[in-house]
């Protein structure tokens, strides 16, 4: 009997505690939330401030290494996600129809101002052996080209642009020399 009494007492204590908790339960409206305080903010996965600093340091290191090795690929973690390095040991002598189609799609995207998509298509085309895609990739990163294209917001990356121009030059595109010269004048 005392055990039963204690059990019942425990039950009532629990219910009472629950009722008190509910009385002071904060009023929230899950459907309508203020911008930052209420919406759950996931932990930054990429490109937080420390990442940016680290990336900046890595970019500088990569640039220094590239100066020593002109044919090396650009830094991997660039401003456009989902893009990896273009391959460095690619045969550019005879681009396939697929590669040329990807270049065409990239040029269409660039003309429409969809710079991120243009870069993605052109990376694929360059990987598939299209040397001209390397030069257009340089344009897609060239701050001067983006300004003349009328891009608003998205920023260029001069070092990446120069790197792609250099690789286009190495692949035998004479037009790339003009681009390299232009970027050197601007420096």
């Amino acid at each position, binding site marked *: 009997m005392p055990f039963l009494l204690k*059990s*019942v007492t425990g*039950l009532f204590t629990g219910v009472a505690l629950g009722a008190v908790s509910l009385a002071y339960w904060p009023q929230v409206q899950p*459907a309508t*939330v203020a911008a930052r305080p209420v919406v759950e903010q996931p932990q930054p996965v990429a490109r937080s401030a420390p990442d940016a600093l680290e990336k900046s340091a890595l970019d500088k290191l990569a640039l220094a290494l590239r100066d020593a090795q002109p044919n090396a690929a650009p830094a991997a973690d660039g401003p456009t*996600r989902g893009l990896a390095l273009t391959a460095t040991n690619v045969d550019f002598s005879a681009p396939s129809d697929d590669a040329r189609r990807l*270049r065409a799609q990239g*040029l*269409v995207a660039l003309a429409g101002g*969809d710079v991120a998509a243009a870069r993605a298509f052109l990376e694929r085309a360059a990987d598939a052996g299209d040397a001209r895609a390397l030069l257009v990739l340089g344009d897609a990163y060239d701050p001067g080209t983006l300004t003349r294209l009328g891009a608003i917001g998205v920023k260029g990356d001069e070092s990446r642009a120069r790197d792609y121009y250099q690789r286009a030059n190495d692949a035998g595109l004479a037009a790339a020399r003009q681009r390299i010269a232009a970027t050197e004048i601007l420096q």
Partner: protein
Amino acid sequence: MPLTQRRRCACLVAAAAIATAATTAAVAQTAPTGDAAPTTSAAAQPAPASDDAQTTPPGMERYDHPVYRDGRLILWHGAWRDRVKPKDQGQSPKDQAQGPKDQRQTAAVPAPAKPSPNSFVLLADPSDACATRLAADFVAAMQAGGASGKILAGGVSAAALGAAVEGDRADLAIAPLDALVADPQASAVWRERAPFIAKLSGEPIEIIAARDVADLRQLAGREVGFGPADSADATSAAALFNALGVAPRPAYEPLADALNDLAAGRLAAVVAVDGRCAPTLAQFGADRRFHELAVRWTPALRSVYAPARLTAKDRPNLIDAAERIDTVAAPRALIALDAAPGSSRAQAAAALTKTFFAGFDRLLVPDKDGAWRDVNLAAEAPWPRLRAAQEWIDAARPASDPSLQTFRAVAHDAASADGGPAAQDSDRLYDSLMQWRGAGQ
């Protein structure tokens, strides 16, 4: 019964009582706010005709749906309104609420106060962590520009957008463009009524499966986790599989649950579009039993998808060190809801657009999501743009020279061809680009 068992029973009963009470209270708190997904609650169902016949005052009728403003319930289902009030089907809900003064006076329920022209509610998918982060950034930047905004958590499928418009719950939305563009029915409904303001950065679509699944086509007829119903993940997953001609059986559940089911062998694969922002996915697959499936870009995907690539740096548990997984990026856009050309809502969206564009640099700082830095406000999309947005862009851009116009015309010509740009268009486009670039040097 031993003492310890009896005490345990008592505690369990108490805990159950508290849990029941808490659940009831939580439901009571959340019920008025509603959700953007089509509701199936009893409150949203039309009242029985017999009840109405008995209780309806002369000349009055019930609202057949709840009405929300700024995410708050202002008119509940069942509220009376004047039956003789004319209802212009061509007007948007906001237009109707702001109708002529004499009509408002005769209404049984007074029309809500007109909101500030620069206040807004932004609809974003709560299960899409990247979109939620973008939405929070957007609202903060808009507030810094003098606008007042809130986020409404809700689905972003075509049906969910329809529910949000029907309830007048949101002005803007971060929505996946692929489903709207690819679905002829959604396109017909929303093409004019939901113009885009800016195309946002696409997110790679990730499809995680056991290593014995080597190709997407092996998923046909098998159960695949699509994310919650009406979510951005589910919408983009359905659109992508449809475009690829593969028909898996969708399972609608949150990413964490879907990954658990995948690990337990209950699902054949899981689709995630917000993997960049989902810590759950980053931790998944440490036992190396799973991998990322490639989505090869084909011309069939050209209208909306761009290529994307994942490496071991993105998913060390799912991608081998030397491996690169090609996939596609799901396009997103900031769209204005129910903002057909010439409507009052289009005017309100125009004011918001000017604030957004003029203060866009606030989003390009380190504490904001890096995806903003990939956004070109002037980027085109296979979807109509809000006229005010286009006018702002045209005014902000430098005058384009004739060679740039030629390049654009050649690109438009190539894109308009059946099957999209072909290999033989590549050199014509390249020459056109070279002429443009040469003209400015």
